[in-house]
């Protein structure tokens, strides 16, 4: 090793010991998302990555609530969808001004309402004419719904697999409700033809790039917020609760309150992701609310590593890239592949991508052994004299 490279590795080592591993991983992820992706990907690909990253919000929510707290929610799509619909309702109303809807029998209301013979804006749509109300609704409504569900379930000690099944049923119910109430919700098509956000055209190329950065900024913000929560006593109590719920209860903590916190926190994060999805993709539909998307979110969290916040980002990128890739070529096979992937991860890598110990894989001893094996495979022309001590043979 040359002196220069020694100094560099020495400095890196010193730096590494100063910064904990998580900070390193966070810095590298931020670098990848904020610099590498925008610099190397085309506008089309970057928009796709932005879409994948919106799924990282609910995946991260599941890391907090399921990975740490042991509360498996199979209905995270409900909160993702709720956030998304709040955003979409505002955008739709902005796109439905009387001028651009003058051909309708009732101008000034969303087109799908007109098709369904509605002549008046329904009362619950009215407040969504305000941007501030809509943004507030994105942040508050998913959490409120989660609070209601949490109070009903956790106070009665409904947990584990029963809770998971109930959340799945709620996801199914909400999707059916949205599809059934076509005049109020846009039905199975969802809320489409969204154009501007407070006059800013979200379909333009520059807007797509800007939204990518907003999305990444929010995502990294949520990583920091969640890791702050997990570092608190509450964070360790969540793990303790996953391990021995009774012990936590008999140590004087209200377990139901802790669970409700985790569930509401997760719902709020998921809602932010849903709102970003609407902005990035330009529509919202019930196909992002029901059982399948909810399970995809769980799989993304599991693939990334359900104990790792950053893992959720990589898990979402990988699973959703896989979905795009495979559903283009084998649309029918995708769900089977997804299920297979889930089983593989659970069986072989219970800690997901984040659990792969790169240091062990790249361990110098193992590399040396590997090198020796490769060396042994090479034909040897003649025995070479042993290299003198302290020098590395070329």
């Amino acid at each position: 090793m040359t002196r220069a490279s020694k100094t560099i590795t020495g400095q890196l080592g010193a730096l590494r010991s100063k910064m904990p591993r998580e900070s390193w991983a966070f810095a590298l992820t931020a670098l990848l998302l904020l610099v590498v992706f925008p610099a190397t990907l085309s506008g089309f690909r970057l928009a796709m990555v932005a879409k994948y990253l919106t799924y990282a919000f609910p995946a991260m929510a599941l890391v907090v609530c399921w990975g740490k707290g042991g509360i498996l929610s199979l209905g995270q799509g409900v909160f993702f969808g709720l956030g998304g619909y709040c955003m979409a309702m505002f955008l739709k109303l902005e796109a439905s001004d009387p001028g651009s809807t003058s051909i309708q029998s009732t101008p000034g209301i969303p087109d799908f309402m007109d098709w369904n013979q509605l002549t008046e804006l329904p009362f619950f749509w009215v407040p969504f004419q305000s941007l501030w109300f809509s943004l507030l609704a994105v942040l508050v409504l998913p959490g409120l719904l989660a609070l209601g569900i949490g109070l009903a379930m956790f106070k009665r000690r409904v947990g584990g697999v029963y809770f998971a099944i109930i959340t799945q049923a709620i996801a199914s119910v909400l999707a059916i409700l949205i599809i059934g109430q076509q005049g109020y919700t846009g039905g199975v098509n969802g809320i489409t033809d969204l154009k501007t956000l407070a006059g800013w055209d979200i379909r333009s190329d520059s807007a797509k790039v800007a939204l990518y950065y907003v999305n990444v900024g929010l995502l990294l913000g949520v990583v920091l917020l969640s890791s702050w929560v997990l570092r608190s006593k509450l964070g360790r109590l969540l793990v303790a609760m996953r391990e021995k719920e009774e012990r936590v209860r008999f140590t004087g903590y209200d377990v139901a309150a802790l669970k409700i916190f985790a569930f509401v926190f997760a719902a709020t994060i998921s809602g932010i992701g849903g709102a970003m999805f609407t902005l990035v993709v330009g529509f919202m539909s019930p196909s992002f609310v029901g059982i399948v998307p909810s399970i995809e979110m769980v799989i993304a969290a599991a693939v990334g590593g359900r104990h790792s916040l950053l893992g959720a980002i990589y898990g979402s990128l990988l699973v959703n890239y896989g979905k795009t890739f495979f559903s283009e070529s084998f649309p029918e096979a995708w769900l089977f592949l997804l299920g297979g992937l889930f089983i593989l991860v659970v069986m072989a890598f219970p800690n997901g991508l984040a659990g792969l110990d790169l240091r062990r894989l790249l361990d110098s001893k193992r590399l040396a052994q590997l090198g020796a094996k490769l060396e042994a495979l090479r034909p040897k022309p003649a025995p070479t004299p042993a290299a003198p001590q302290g020098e590395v043979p070329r």
Partner: protein
Amino acid sequence: MIGEPKLLAVEGLGVSFDGFKAVDDLTLYLDNGEIRAIIGPNGAGKTTLLDLISGKTRSSEGRVLFKGEEITALKEHEIVQAGIGRKFQTPSVYEELTVFENLEMAFPSRRSWWGALWSRRTKEVTEQVEQIAELVYLRDRLNDRAEILGHGQKQWLEIGMLLIQSPDLMMLDEPVAGMSVNERQKTAELLKQLARGRAVLVVEHDMQFVESIADTVTVLHQGKLLAEGKMANVKNDQKVIDVYLGH
């Protein structure tokens, strides 16, 4: 009652599961500073009694008073906050957390979710954790994950988790089960030491251990009180010999 109320008063307590009376019209009183052992054959209702006092099981008759206040209808965590700590039969610790964190989680401050969210490790907590760890023979294991502790050490850790709450009443369900002779002795010493200033209620099978620690022994049989008194007297009680000791 005249004078100071008893620390714990269990009066006419009863519960039945599908018609089976697990605990039946049970009355017992506990003073501060007392070590009381509950013994009895399998199915006598020993663990159920602890469940009833700690709120894990709801009683169908009778009441439990703690420091003169009725606690019969309180929730588990409220009973703990009132000052009753409980150790389970099998060691119940957080395997994936370190010994330090296990004790820290039991420290009785910031128990609301909001308080816990803003809680960071303070010097007070650290000192208290180290002190308790010393007491339960785990001072040099603070940074180890609880899962790698031995069985006896896990029992001690759980006792430590109770101690750090400084409860006025400690209830221990078979604290020396699965312990070596040496560990049993150390646990007996520990219990005597920590009984100062509080009452201890122990459910235990090991008669030698009971004899070495308890002031008073309560014998249960089929959910009812069979005998109560000093171990020496109880041992010679014909009823007790018939149902329990003599078999």
